[in-house]
């Protein structure tokens, strides 16, 4: 069965912005799918609202639509492009839901579009909890007892039968949004209401709790000839009750005997057939009773998922790629195994290594959020580590997590491990509740000689894993003892020391861990180890445990005997990736790394990628000439450098992660390509930067630094309040605060100090009501070209990553833009930037201030490139490789004749109890882009991409603080003129009426009912304009904003955003939104540039 020739063009739906539960893994799958389809000669039409992705690069698809991923907008694309088929399985839950809606509303039938990969029935059976349970019964498989309910009353009746604790799973949501574990009736009712709201079909499955059972997952693939293979088994260390995305997981499964595994395999094969995934992948989750081995089927996803991304990277079997090929008709045995290239894809990968995945959380950004881990996913990223043994992989995973731990080590303080005191009872109480710190608490318990059985009883973690961990603790003790014995005898003999270190390295201990145990510095430990000839070998991920020769250098390190990797040629460039995704450092940096790798390769270099993040395109083995799946620590990178002997290492594309390694690499004599670490330091170091700005005549906000609170108070007094305080060397505005008085300065100074101990806290004059702008530029040391100037829509004081922004600027004068460009050029040339640079400016009262200069790839590079079609990251790589901008044909600053808006996406719905107000600390997880011929329409598209819709009529509720009252009048008037009813609390209503804008008064929350929250709940408010009112009504505001979020009422919390929303609604009311592919927009830019030249 070769590929289908009756299909010509295929529509791919992307997953939209990165949110918790739906992350960068869908860039990996969408990109693989698009490439796989084009390889077969299909015309690929792609839609995704997320610009920070490789998949939305104009080269990846034939037609690339950065448009809202909603049924309404995708229909427009279908009407225009008339694809023959739609592949719905590559864009996560979003892709699946949109495809289902297009099916239900008859759009697919109307335009004759066929669903391939998974059909409507399969999606429905898998996604609808009731139908799924029925399907499982048909094939003799058990699911946890439960009932699907559509109302609170039904739910309460249902839980009577199944009992507490009860698991709630809303239908058709991703990452378990709105779900949870209820231990009593109160919790149950609250959770059920939330779940019913969260489910787009208003139904929730209430289930018998199987908390504490072992949890497993199988990844499968089926072709149209009914051949099924299991790609990978995954075992969760955290038992049932913790979302698999939040669990530490291991591949392959560690504690299943063959008999149990085959029962599971048989079940999975039956499930994919019964659900009816005709040609594609799926995953199935199982729970296993540790006492009896009873197996229950938990759920099945008829699409690629986060787990399939992990399984792909863990095995070398490219699930999205193969899934796409079978969707267009290929049989598995007609497709080659891309790693061995001699054997077929119809096989089951076997591993001769162990893979550990560890989630990364962002609770430090949401102090009010509950850090308890439940069935609703809360992590924002993950790291994957490969080792020859579980212990090795486990330790590599923790040091790759980049949370300041050199491996599986306890925190410096009890608080770091979320403990209030160090009593054994307290630790044992703490480990009952899963949190991100639980495994560190477990280590503390083991260090206190708590028996494994006790820990197993409290945590329900399988004793096998705990014994492994206990062996690590035991090894540390032995090492410490023997090292100090050696010391007291004048230092251990070389042979003894070698054996000592070797034994620890084989268990995955980092140099820093060993150095800490031995009481020496990391550098000293590294040099001793190397002098003893102890270096890791690199082994291949080859899908077949060495049974067949492999052609693909996909490598990991291990302290084992044989090394399979070798340096190749003298034109190797190593690109350091960005590690696990986190808030402030996400998929946009992976985009830059991938573009750079592709560009270096085009320029004739051999490219080697180093990264530890399985949810990425960069860790696809065919994106570079060599892939090292390794933690991004100095130790690990130095070993790769030692082996590869590269021309240079590239640190400027992967965000702060590689940048932090630059100095260390340089100190070991490793050449850094592009902008020198010295120049990077000159820009990052506050004192040096101030001198530089002064020398270049660029104005800065008044500023100073302080190491103590007294100093800080003095500096702030001199500068004048309000001031912005922040720690040195952080990304994403960690612990950044605007403080208005000495009291709050004292409150927040300590927090800022703790983030970067030993480094001064930076204190800046805060420019209230200023406009902010970002400039992205590229330089080759001789020349600097401006890639784009973006104006932030929110005022100064909101983190640039959280602010919407627009290109070109719309409220800054041309002179000011010209001034920024000029400053940028001067900075670039003065610093000797070779590669990318980002500068942030503020404009207040007509004056331009520079806020910061970052001589590296910025978060906005993909957005700018998608807007203009100029691939800045690729050009930067070429420049770093020695070419000049002139030779690359990039001489002019880029300009484009349309408008592009970027909007941020927040995880607030995942964190009950967290306020939605924006501030200087970044909290968004992703972004969307709207592109159109007017600001209003571009902003509208961006908003629709975030919220799904914008109201075209109805009521708007306005409640703003006194400062914002003058500004709100004009906005309210425009809404009134469009026919919206204006509702407001007393003060605002009176103010508006006095200025001729009719407004209905509504009671404040604390004044009585019905209040605005009631109106939101009952659907009487379509848009909320709220700015913080001050301390007294803080609680009111908070409740209001949370209510809007929960009931999906669009809201804005700044006046500038409100004005923009108003523009957007006017645009949407006056004409229907048009869709246009990037390829056409970029053609317009090229024509525009050519015209302005002529």
């Amino acid at each position, binding site marked *: 069965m070769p590929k289908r020739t009756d299909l010509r063009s295929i529509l791919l739906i992307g997953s939209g912005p990165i949110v918790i539960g739906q992350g960068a893994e869908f860039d990996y799958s969408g990109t693989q799918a698009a490439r796989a389809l084009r390889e077969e000669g299909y015309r690929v039409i792609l839609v995704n609202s997320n610009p920070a992705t490789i998949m939305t690069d104009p080269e990846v698809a034939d037609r690339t639509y950065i448009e809202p991923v909603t049924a309404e907008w995708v229909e427009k694309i279908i009407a225009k492009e008339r694809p023959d088929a739609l592949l719905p399985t590559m864009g996560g839950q979003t892709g699946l839901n949109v495809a289902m809606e297009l099916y239900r509303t008859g759009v697919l039938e109307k335009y004759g579009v066929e669903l391939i990969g998974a059909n409507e029935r399969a999606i429905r059976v898998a996604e609808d909890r009731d139908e799924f349970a029925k399907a499982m019964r048909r094939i003799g498989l058990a699911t946890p007892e439960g009932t699907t309910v559509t109302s609170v009353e039904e739910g309460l009746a249902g839980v009577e039968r199944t009992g507490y604790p009860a698991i709630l799973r809303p239908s058709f949501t991703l990452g378990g949004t709105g779900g949870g574990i209820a231990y009593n009736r109160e919790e149950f009712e609250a959770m059920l209401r939330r779940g019913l709201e969260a489910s787009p079909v208003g139904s929730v499955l209430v289930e018998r709790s199987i908390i504490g059972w072992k949890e497993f997952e199988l990844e499968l693939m089926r072709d149209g000839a009914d051949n099924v*293979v299991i790609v990978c088994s995954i075992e969760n260390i955290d038992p049932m009750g913790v979302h698999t995305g939040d669990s530490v997981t291991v591949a392959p499964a560690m504690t299943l005997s*063959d008999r149990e595994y085959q029962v599971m395999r048989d079940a999975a094969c039956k499930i994919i057939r019964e659900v009816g995934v005709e040609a594609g992948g799926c995953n199935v989750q199982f729970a296993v009773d540790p006492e009896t081995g009873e197996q229950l089927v938990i759920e099945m996803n008829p699409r690629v998922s986060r787990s399939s991304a992990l399984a792909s990277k863990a095995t070398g079997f490219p699930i999205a790629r193969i899934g796409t090929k079978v969707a267009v008709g290929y049989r598995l045995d007609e497709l080659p195994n891309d790693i061995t290239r001699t054997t077929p894809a119809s*096989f089951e*990968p076997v*591993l001769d290594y162990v893979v550990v995945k560890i989630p990364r959380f962002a609770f430090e950004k949401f102090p009010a959020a509950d850090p308890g881990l439940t069935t609703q996913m809360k992590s924002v990223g993950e790291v994957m580590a490969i080792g020859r043994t579980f212990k090795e992989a486990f330790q590599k995973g923790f040091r790759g997590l980049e949370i300041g731990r050199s491996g599986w080590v306890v925190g410096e303080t009890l608080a770091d491990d979320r403990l209030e005191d160090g009593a054994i009872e307290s630790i044992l109480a703490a480990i009952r509740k899963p949190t991100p710190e639980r495994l560190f608490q477990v280590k503390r318990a083991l260090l206190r000689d708590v028996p494994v059985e006790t820990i197993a009883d409290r945590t329900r973690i399988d004793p096998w894993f705990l014994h492994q961990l206990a062996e690590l603790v035991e090894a540390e003790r032995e090492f410490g003892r023997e090292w100090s014995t050696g010391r007291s005898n004048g230092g251990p003999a070389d042979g003894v020391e070698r054996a000592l270190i070797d034994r620890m390295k084989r268990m995955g201990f980092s140099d820093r861990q060993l150095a800490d145990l031995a009481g020496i510095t990391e550098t000293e430990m590294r040099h001793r180890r190397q002098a003893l000839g102890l270096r890791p070998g690199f082994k291949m991920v080859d899908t077949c*445990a060495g049974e067949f020769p492999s052609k693909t250098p996909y490598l990991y390190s291990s302290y*084992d005997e044989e090394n399979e990797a070798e340096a190749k040629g003298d034109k190797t460039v190593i690109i350091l990736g960005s590690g696990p995704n986190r808030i402030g450092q996400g998929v946009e940096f992976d985009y830059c790394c991938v573009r750079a790798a592709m560009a270096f390769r085009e320029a004739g270099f051999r490219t080697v990628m180093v990264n530890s993040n399985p949810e990425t395109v960069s860790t696809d083995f065919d994106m570079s000439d060599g892939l090292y799946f390794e933690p991004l620590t100095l130790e690990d990178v130095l070993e790769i450098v030692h082996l590869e002997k590269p021309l240079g290492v590239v640190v400027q594309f992967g965000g702060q992660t590689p940048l932090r390694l630059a100095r260390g690499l340089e100190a070991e004599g490793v050449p850094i390509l592009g902008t020198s670490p010295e120049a990077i330091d000159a820009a990052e170091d506050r004192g040096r930067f101030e001198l530089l700005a002064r020398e270049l005549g660029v104005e800065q906000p008044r500023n100073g630094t302080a190491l103590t609170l007294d100093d800080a108070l003095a500096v702030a007094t001199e500068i004048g309040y309000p001031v912005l305080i922040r720690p040195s060397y952080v990304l994403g505005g960690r612990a950044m605060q605007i403080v208005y008085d000495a009291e709050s300065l004292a409150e927040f100074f300590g927090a800022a100090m703790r983030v970067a101990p030993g480094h001064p806290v930076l204190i800046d004059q805060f420019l209230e009501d200023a406009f902010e702008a970002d400039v992205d530029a590229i330089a080759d040391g001789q020349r600097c070209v401006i890639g784009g100037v973006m104006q932030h829509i929110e005022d100064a004081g909101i983190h640039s990553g959280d602010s919407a922004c627009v290109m070109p600027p719309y409220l800054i004068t041309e002179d000011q833009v010209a001034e920024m460009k000029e400053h940028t050029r001067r900075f670039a040339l003065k610093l000797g930037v070779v590669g990318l640079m980002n500068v942030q400016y503020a404009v207040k009262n007509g004056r331009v201030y520079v806020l910061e200069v970052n001589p590296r790839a910025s978060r906005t590079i993909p957005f700018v490139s998608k807007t203009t079609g100029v691939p800045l990251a690729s050009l930067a790589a070429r420049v770093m490789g020695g070419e000049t901008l002139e030779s690359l044909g990039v001489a002019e600053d880029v300009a484009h004749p349309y408008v592009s808006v970027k909007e941020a996406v927040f995880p607030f719905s995942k964190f009950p109890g967290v306020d939605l107000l924006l501030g200087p600390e970044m909290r968004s997880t992703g972004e969307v882009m709207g592109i159109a011929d007017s600001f209003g329409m571009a902003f509208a598209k961006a908003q629709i991409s975030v919220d799904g819709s914008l109201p075209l009529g109805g009521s708007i509720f306005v409640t703003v603080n006194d400062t914002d009252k003058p500004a709100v009048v004009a906005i309210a008037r425009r809404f009134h003129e469009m026919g919206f009813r204006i509702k407001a609390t007393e003060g605002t209503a009176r103010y508006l009426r006095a200025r001729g804008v009719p407004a209905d008064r509504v009671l404040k929350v604390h004044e009585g009912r019905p209040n605005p929250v009631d109106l939101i709940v009952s659907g009487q408010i379509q848009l909320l304009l709220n700015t913080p009112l001050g301390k007294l009504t803080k609680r009111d505001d908070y409740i209001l904003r949370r209510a809007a979020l929960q009931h999906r009422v669009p809201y804005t919390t700044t006046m500038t955003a409100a004005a923009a929303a108003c523009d957007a609604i006017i645009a949407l009311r006056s004409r229907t939104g048009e869709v246009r592919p990037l390829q056409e927009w970029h053609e317009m830019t090229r024509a525009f540039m050519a015209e302005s030249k002529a």
Partner: protein
Amino acid sequence: MNGRPAFVLLEDGTWYSGTTTHEAGPAFGEVVFTTNLTGYQETFTDPSYIGQIVVMTAPMIGNYGINNGDMESERPQVAGVVVRELARKHSNWRATGSLSGWLAEAGIPVIEGVDTRRLTRHIRERGAMRGLIGAGAGPTPELKAELLRSPSMEGLDLASKAGTREPYGETGGGKGPHVVAIDFGMKRNIVRMLALAGCRVTVVPCDTTPEAIRARKPDGLFLSNGPGDPGALGYAISNIRELAGAGLPTFGICLGHQLLGWAFGGHTVKMPYGHRGGNHPVKDLLSGRVLITSQNHGFAVAGSTTDGVLGGPDLEVTHLNLNDGTVEGIRHKSLPVFAVQYHPEAAPGPHDAFPHFQQFMDLMGA
């Protein structure tokens, strides 16, 4: 926690260091690797592994201990075990003991800490060869010499030692067809699967004469798996030719498959490093379907899809290994006779090929 130094020595002189926790050996055998991720207990008790030192490519072995249900014969059969890491502690609700304790009790040498991937890659490049597991920091010249004097797998009749010496099982009564199974080192799960399919099974020693078998009035003949070189089993081959050639419905697995090949004019060849694992894709040439199969063999029936079974014009190739194109299944063109090279009874491995037992039932008209 740390064992004493030990090593694996191969006949080409390469050796691999590791440690061992219990004193045993030196143990000699053919060094082979299996890529099974699970099922070490079934593997080690599979009589087909007699005379072999088994390298597990999966690095973590012993995690779920051992239990009474996963025995494929009454004791571990392997000559020795090589692993990357042997679990100190196990965890499983069925476990009755630890793997290391069980192997120690049976006197089977086990070496851990070995770079099993390096060893596997070496065997892949140079082929399976004789080897030994020895104690100490490294091999002595005496030991090297002794290794070279040890028997080689080719031409070795191990089956006669592996199977039962006395007939056992069904002697009459019951409803299902009566199958006489010739035991060359049969795995227990084969008997279980035949019984599950509805057969009455009598297991007989591998040198049982055709007369004695006919005297049991079989409805079908089953030829089991087993260790060693099929070419060395001339007596069995002629017995099979006589019985199957006379039209008795016959089903062979693994060694049984190879013997059937011989019986109808074909022959077997020694493969460079064999197939051992649970992930081998086999194409059913009649249905076009791909089965993921459990495998354990070092010899293969010579032939291909284009040439059929070399020397066996009455046989037809029905199954093919998709990795290397070797013959995985044959049937007779006119007689009710078929065989597969892989293990439909699994244990360990996937169950995709379970239907062969029903196929045998159908052949017997049951």
